């Protein structure tokens, strides 16, 4: 199970979506999320949903993986739906004691739920079709212009790379410490919340110490391999915009126009 988490949720493949530059995908995802909040009627959502599922179809990622991300946030979606359903004032549709459902409430609740579902699917497409290393590389390149005003873009990207690399190592370390403490009679399973939280201290303290030791080892190894910051560094796989990215940009612009136009559709 530990092994699943580490590579993010990347679904290996060689589709057109997989081959796109990570930067294109990051920008497209951001743009799509913004567009979802521009949409204000049924037709807009229909267009947004159709476009999204077209991308899913092209990416060849099984629907099972797409919807897996949704189950985790199902509660949030349900909660937002109910809140919107009962809290919006307007023309009364149904009334019982203190509960009131209005016509506006129903439409707002549906729109909000659909918006959230599309938003989550849209962002999972990004992580499902992009290797973590490409994602961090893309982010580094995108943040590069901001390094002039002091944003450490290379360091941020390297931190993400190292964090991804060491999640499994630290998980194993935690596992080892838990077993060692259990062997000495530590009890992590009984007691109330406060007692359980306290019983975590014998895990967290050694974990903290050992992560410092790991960090020291890693720093030494990086120095031995001539690491001296981002300046003058080259990359084995230079990411660059290709024809596919230009096509994606055109599609994105077209889609933006359609979404804005959809606000004025009245049928």
């Amino acid at each position, binding site marked *: 199970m530990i*092994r699943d988490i580490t590579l993010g949720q990347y679904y290996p493949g060689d589709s057109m979506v997989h081959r796109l530059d990570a930067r294109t995908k990051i920008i497209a995802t951001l743009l799509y999320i913004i567009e979802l909040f521009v949409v204000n009627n049924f037709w807009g959502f229909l267009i947004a949903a159709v476009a999204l599922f077209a991308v899913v179809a092209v990416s060849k990622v099984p629907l099972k993986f797409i919807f897996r991300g949704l189950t985790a946030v199902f509660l949030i979606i349900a909660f937002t739906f109910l809140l919107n359903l009962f809290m919006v004032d307007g023309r009364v549709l149904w009334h019982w004691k203190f509960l009131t459902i209005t016509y506006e409430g129903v439409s707002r609740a549906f729109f909000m739920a659909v918006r959230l579902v599309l938003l989550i699917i849209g962002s999972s497409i990004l992580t499902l079709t992009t290797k973590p290393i490409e994602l961090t590389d893309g982010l580094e390149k995108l943040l590069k212009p901001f390094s002039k005003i002091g944003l450490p873009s290379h360091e941020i990207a390297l931190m993400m790379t190292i964090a991804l690399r060491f999640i499994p190592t630290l998980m194993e370390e935690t596992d080892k410490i838990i077993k060692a403490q259990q062997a000495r009679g530590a009890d992590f399973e009984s007691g109330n919340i406060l007692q359980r939280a306290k019983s975590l201290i014998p895990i967290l303290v050694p974990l903290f110490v050992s992560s410092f030791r790991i960090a020291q*080892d890693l720093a*030494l190894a990086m120095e031995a*391999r*001539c690491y001296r910051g981002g300046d003058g560094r*080259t990359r*084995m796989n230079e990411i660059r915009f290709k024809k596919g990215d230009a096509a994606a940009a055109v599609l994105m612009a077209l889609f933006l126009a359609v979404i804005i136009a959809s606000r004025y559709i009245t049928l």
Partner: protein
Amino acid sequence: MGFIEIRDLKIEFTKIDESGKEVPGKVALDGISLDIEKGSFVAVVGMNGSGKSTLAKCLNGLLIPTAGRVIVDGFDTANDETIWDIRSRVSMVFQNPDNQLVSSIVEDDVAFGPENLGIEPAEIRERVDNALIKVGMFELRDKGAHMLSGGQKQRIAIAGAIAMRPDCIVFDEPTAMLDPKGRAGVMQIIRDLHSAGITCILITHFMSEAEQADRVIVLKNGKLLCDRTPAALFSDREMIERAGLEMPPEIELRDKAGLPKELVTAEEIADYIAGK
């Protein structure tokens, strides 16, 4: 004149006392002078705390001498300006396979060193592929590092060192955390690198590994105890005892069977017995 020249090397660690002042602490190395020739295979042995890992870290400027000098290919390790010239010539492989890999993907990790040197992408690709072929991990190049065994991770670390195209690789107890199979694989790679002309310096506490070198350096309490060929060292029981070491089992067998003292490695002894 050797590829690496060590003159009166002293390493003294400082510690912080109760009042927060830096005071002299343990002397890890004292009065070490050595020459290491290009293309040689040198083993460094000694008990825990004898200073062998400290010596390894002096060879590429990870530690700067408190006194004395370490000169690598004409560059002084104490000179900040040429430190990268030294580190691109002398690579290092550490003990813990988990704590020296930087990237989650095998080939990305091997590329880390060459990327730091600012090499052209096409050449990095070629170096990475070559290095992975040399350590027999080319098929696993796009796998996640966390899926590999300890021995495989250590081979990736060696590939990362090879990809820098160094003249010399320092191995700091590379087999200490591996199972016997992983250990044998790593030793085979070290022997291959030595035959390919790379200077190999192996820090180890396994005598069976040290006996495969051209030359064994024995340290005790930070001082140089002796510096000889494995054949000379492993026929001197008194010296082995003084260093706090143990004779490897094959040497015990050789001596109990009364075989010639020139035989050192298990292979040589086995060949002798089979040929008899």
